[in-house]
């Protein structure tokens, strides 16, 4: 006993006490146990297996099947007597919701079935959602109901009563906001509180009494109709809100259930889900990317951005064309240089990626005044000053008519660069998992190829920063600031005025120091370092290499591309439609319109569809001959250079989305009422022991044993409280007490008074 837990001790003690007091079943089963032990001593193996169940008090309920129905095919059936009926619903959950509400109606839950009288037919759902819409926009329910009521009176030519209804049931929130203005105007624009009007009408208040002039009999009946409609409207709203709550409750979404409730007290509510028909379909993911990568002809630029991202530099450069042919006209006064002079972007020392950044801060004005306010103006000015440091009256014209066909103006080049910047800013860097099916993405990514760009950029940045800190003369400061400006640091291109240079230099040097400190913190990714050094709008494309298996699958898929669709026509049509709903593709469309107008060949996309399947067709096209499997990933890759799939890749990820091709058949559900017997099988394994020496079982014996077991089960529940008089005769537990201790004495009288625990001690087994 020592080792038993106290709970077990408690149970054993109470069981023992029970057996000594009223548990006769234990005495009876003890006989069986003894018999079983005896049997097992003779033969210790062998048992027959069967099943059992029982029901009791079987009584025919006459009237349940009184309405016979002859079916069209001649069979006989019975009509359901209590008409629980069935409800055809959009999904299983909707059907569950409907059955819960129908059940509440039939069983009068909460004592009032009328509250569960639901009518959510189409017209009522629309009415209710209209009111909910108004509530969602912050209008009180009363105002929305009141507005509808007034509109209906207006349609019925009963306008003369509106004012009177308003004064009977004013909306209480309004007057304060219009204080100080002519009150007539506000009153005339006020609205009746529809909720209070409805409540008064339903409560039987005579809402027509105060009307003046009193309505005629005809008007009275029209008004009554309108008030009934108002009540109907409120009903449909409460039906919808209740159904919505139940819908969320049966989904175990208690917060959704509360949200639906709160809507009635003036808070915005989500769209009611209980009226939505969810639809199944085949999902399909589209991804679009520009793939750059190991291109043998890449000529790295000389500026910070170009060195950091040579692939992007090359690609943007190819779109912008020769920057040496983007011209503006500068007129100036000079002793020895001929004016006007045509300055190109190449003259400014700007490279394509620098131009992209510049478009974000500088708009090209047609003519720059002498003030040279913008960075671009100062850059052009410095080109002239380099030719003749004494040049004056420098005036720049940006939108000249280009002299040659292949020349562009600054305005055009900037607009083109801006459209590229719009594309780039709506993208992110391409990642290896973009080229894989979601299920194929490895847990540990393929190792990235070595990349020294971040380290180089950091060293370069440090050198430029040191130059700036050490520069003392205006000329040196100017040079250092010009270098710094190519890192995209605020207003860093040197001002015209020498006097303002030291301040500017100090500010920029401090910013460079901040960036350098932040970038040299250990443990950062290359992208993070670049974002700090070159600013957030610079896009750094990490390089990656696909695993051998992924590369092999992608190779197959790309090779299949031309067979997937009729290229480029199918793809162009698809893009023209997609651009209307996808902002990122719309930016791409603008760029393509520009490059097309400028005579560049249109960018060719290649299609690849994952997983690779021989004979497949592009899933964006109508099915021929049948629906594609779900979960396809359609890749549209624009590859200006075509590195092999097992080479180093980098790129821009343009856009992706998942679309659903709806199914032709939808699984709806029917919930119905049917009186199911509630009986359950017994939850115990019965070991029946043959009563006599007979070697065989017969059904009578077995039935007797089952009956006896059922009786025993009832006897098992007997306790002393059920045996008021009989209890006296039971082999109860008696404990002797002798005040003089003349016999063994257990005195409960004092113990019970002092120790409540005794009561706990005698608590019995079945609890």
């Amino acid at each position, binding site marked *: 006993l020592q080792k038993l837990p106290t709970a077990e001790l408690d149970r054993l003690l109470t069981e023992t006490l029970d057996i000594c*007091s009223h548990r006769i079943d234990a005495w009876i089963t003890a006989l069986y146990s003894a018999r079983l032990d005896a049997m097992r001593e003779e033969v210790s193996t062998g048992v027959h297996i069967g099943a059992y169940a029982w*029901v*009791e008090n079987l009584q025919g309920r006459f009237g349940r*099947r009184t309405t016979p129905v002859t*079916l069209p095919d001649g069979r006989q*059936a019975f*009509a*359901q007597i209590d008409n*629980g*009926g*069935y*409800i*055809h619903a959009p999904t299983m959950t909707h059907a569950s*919701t*409907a059955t*819960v509400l129908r*059940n509440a109606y039939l*069983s009068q839950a*909460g004592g009032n079935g009328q509250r569960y009288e*639901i009518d959510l*037919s*189409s*017209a*009522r*759902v629309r009415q209710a959602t209209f009111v909910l819409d108004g509530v969602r926009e912050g*209008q009180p329910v009363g105002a929305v109901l009141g*507005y509808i009521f007034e509109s209906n009176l*207006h349609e019925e030519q009963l306008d003369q009563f509106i004012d009177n209804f308003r004064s009977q049931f004013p909306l209480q929130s309004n007057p304060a906001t219009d204080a100080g203005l002519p009150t007539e*105007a506000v009153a005339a624009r006020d609205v009746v509180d529809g909720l209070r009007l409805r409540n008064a009408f339903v409560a039987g208040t005579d809402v027509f009494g105060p009307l003046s002039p009193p309505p005629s009999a005809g008007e009275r009946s029209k008004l009554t109709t309108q008030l009934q409609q108002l009540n109907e409207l409120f009903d449909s709203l409460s039906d919808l809100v209740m159904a919505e709550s139940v819908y969320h409750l049966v989904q*175990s979404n208690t917060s959704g*259930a509360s949200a639906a409730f709160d809507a009635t007290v003036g808070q915005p509510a989500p769209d009611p889900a209980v*009226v939505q028909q969810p639809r199944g*379909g085949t999902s399909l993911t589209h991804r679009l990317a520009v793939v750059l990568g190991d291109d043998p002809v890449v000529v790295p630029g000389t500026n910070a951005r170009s060195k950091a991202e040579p692939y992007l530099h090359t690609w943007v450069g190819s779109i912008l064309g020769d920057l040496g042919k983007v011209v503006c006209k500068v007129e100036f006064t000079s002793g020895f240089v001929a004016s006007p002079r045509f300055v190109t972007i190449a003259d400014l020392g700007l490279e394509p990626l620098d131009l992209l950044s510049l478009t974000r801060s500088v708009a090209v004005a047609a003519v720059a005044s002498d003030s040279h306010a913008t960075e671009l103006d100062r850059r052009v000015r410095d080109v002239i000053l380099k030719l003749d440091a004494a040049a004056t009256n420098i005036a720049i014209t940006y939108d000249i008519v280009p002299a040659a066909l292949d020349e562009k103006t600054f305005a055009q080049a900037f607009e083109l660069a801006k459209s590229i910047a719009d594309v780039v800013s709506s993208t992110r860097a391409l990642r290896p998992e973009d080229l894989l099916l979601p299920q194929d993405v490895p847990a540990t990514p393929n190792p990235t190829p070595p990349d020294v760009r971040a380290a180089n950029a950091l060293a370069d940045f440090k050198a430029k920063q040191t130059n700036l800190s050490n520069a003392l003369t205006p000329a040196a400061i100017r040079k250092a600031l010009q270098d710094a400006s190519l890192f995209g640091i605020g207003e860093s291109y040197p001002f015209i005025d020498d006097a303002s240079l030291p301040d500017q230099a100090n500010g920029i040097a401090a910013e460079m120091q901040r960036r350098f400190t932040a970038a040299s913190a250990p443990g950062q990714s290359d992208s993070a370092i670049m974002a700090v050094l070159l600013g957030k709008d610079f896009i750094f494309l990490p390089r990656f290499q696909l695993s051998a298996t992924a590369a092999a699958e992608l190779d197959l898929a790309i090779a299949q591309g031309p067979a997937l669709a009729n290229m480029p026509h199918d793809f162009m049509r698809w893009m023209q439609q*997609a651009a209307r*709903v996808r902002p990122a593709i719309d930016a791409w469309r*603008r760029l393509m319109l520009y490059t097309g*107008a400028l*005579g560049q060949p*249109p960018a060719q996309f290649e299609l690849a569809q994952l997983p690779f399947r021989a004979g497949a067709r592009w899933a964006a096209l*109508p099915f021929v001959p049948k629906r594609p499997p779900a979960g396809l990933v359609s890749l549209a890759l624009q590859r200006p250079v075509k590195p092999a799939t097992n080479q180093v890749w980098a790129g821009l990820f343009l856009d992706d989305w998942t679309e659903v091709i*709806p199914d032709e058949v*939808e699984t*709806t*559900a*029917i*919930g*119905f009422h*049917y009186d199911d017997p*509630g*009986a*359950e099988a017994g*939850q*115990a394994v019965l070991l029946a022991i043959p009563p006599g020496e007979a070697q065989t079982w017969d059904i009578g014996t077995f039935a007797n044993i089952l009956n006896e077991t*059922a009786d025993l089960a009832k006897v*098992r529940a007997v306790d002393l409280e059920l045996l008021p008089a009989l209890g006296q005769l039971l082999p109860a537990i*008696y404990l002797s007490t002798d005040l*003089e201790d003349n016999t063994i004495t*257990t*005195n409960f009288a004092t113990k019970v008074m002092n120790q409540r625990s005794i009561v706990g001690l*005698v608590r019995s087994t079945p609890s």
Partner: protein
Amino acid sequence: MKTTTLSQLANRALVPSATYWYRLEPRPRTNSLVGPTAAPARDPLWFITRQWQMGEFLAEDAASPAYVEIGSSYGSLTDWKTSAGSPQPIPAGVPLEPLVEREAVTPDLALSVELGQTFELLLIQDHGGTTAQRDAFRVAFPLMLPVNADPDTVRFFSICGGRAVDGVALFRALQSGAATPSAPPGIFADFQAWVTDVFGDIGTADPVTWNPNIINYEVKADGTLPSNTAGEFAATPARDGAFDWFAFDLVSQTRTPPAKPPTKNPSITVIPTHVRFRGMPNAKWWDFENNVTDYGAIDLQRQDLAKLAVMDFMLLHGNDWFVVPVDIPVNSLYRIESFLVRDVFGGLTSVDRTDRTTTSTGGHWTMFSTAANGGVADFFLLPPTASVAMQTGDILEDLRFLRDPTANMNWAIESEIEGGIGQPLYGTEEDARNRPAPLPPGGPVQAGAVIRYGIETPVPTCWFPYVPVEVTNVVTQVVLRQGEVERGTPSLVVPRGRVLPGVKELREQEVPRTGVRITRVATRSRWLDGSTHLWIARRKTSGRGEGSSGLRFDTVTNV
């Protein structure tokens, strides 16, 4: 407890005394619910006893359902029409929304270039045309910069001007049969088919189903009812533009059999399952349960009818409700012809729709049904709606109608419109650009004058007034008519969006206190056969309440 040893007992003097007997009576009952609800396990008989106590062995005159026999038939929506127009077929290959909502695509400059480049591609790549031919088209259909273009459009034109065919002008010329430069045979047909396939119609007309007087779509549909009669439906899109089941009302039925008869399905048998949801207790006392939702934690308030209903279902009657799945085709009016439950003893019970009979208050207990002339239709409607497959773009146009109680006016505000290349133009920014400079404090001031009199204060150029006008047609009605206020601009300010120019008059009740918001969005959707559809749709939603234009008449300011 006092104890005494035997020797002490033996040695002391015996005093007469009475011996009492205490009887120990174990009482297993308790008022606490903690023990019983924990359902502790005891001896095997206890398991059965507990089941007996819970009524699990009570017999009922009932039989478990074995399976359900469902006979059904279905019709479909066959045609759509405007409120006055003739029926147009609803083909299987197009969802309802693009059919009825589609408005013509705005012919902006970007579309002109896009179509122009498409034409050039077809000309040169597909039909072997020459650059000389292309240039002839560029001359014949040159790109034109619209007057008073916004800055974005001007910059766009600076690149594309003269470098592309105006594809919209070409498309219209082809439609109207106007003369064009010579081109390889077949290219025009190819081009027109391309434009129609991708964009549909091009223009600025309202959708045919659009009724500007109520600023909403007015759509009707014809269908074959399962009862082999023709039915006419009225359809109102929801705020997301979808025509879901509740968008439809059956307005009339004709006895004449429809052109396309309904389909009769062979009877199917399904095994029903109990209605169960997560957290619901099992019917059997000893079953282990998956306690997902703690219903005890739901704060049950007096008015919480929904929670009451769910509790009632879970604890009392849940066992008597079943559910069966039914697959039905998209675009069907699906009627259950017979619903028979076959029980395990072979009996058949016929179950009817809940709304076949009226309730005690004369209404219908119904859900998910289609309203029909005060009653409900006897079918389940799964309309051919793209609904969840719809993919929408950014808002193209955002128009608000509101009441202005302070100025006693109604206004329409073009808060966002499409720019010259389809980019968003915001009303406030456009107002800042177009608004005339405030009048200089000039003009002759009378000697000794201390005040200046103004007729009215200026109103933003994107606000358009609607004034109530009494119109007597058959009955006298008040309509709101588009008006104009003096803004100090050299010419009349007219609406520049797509919706407002058509709304010359609208019914007064269409501008409620809540206001109305009309948006235009591009919508794209896949459909059952894999086809892709693009259309520009209009959506009507509730507004944000009243506004104030700041308009004042007869102002007096200090000089």
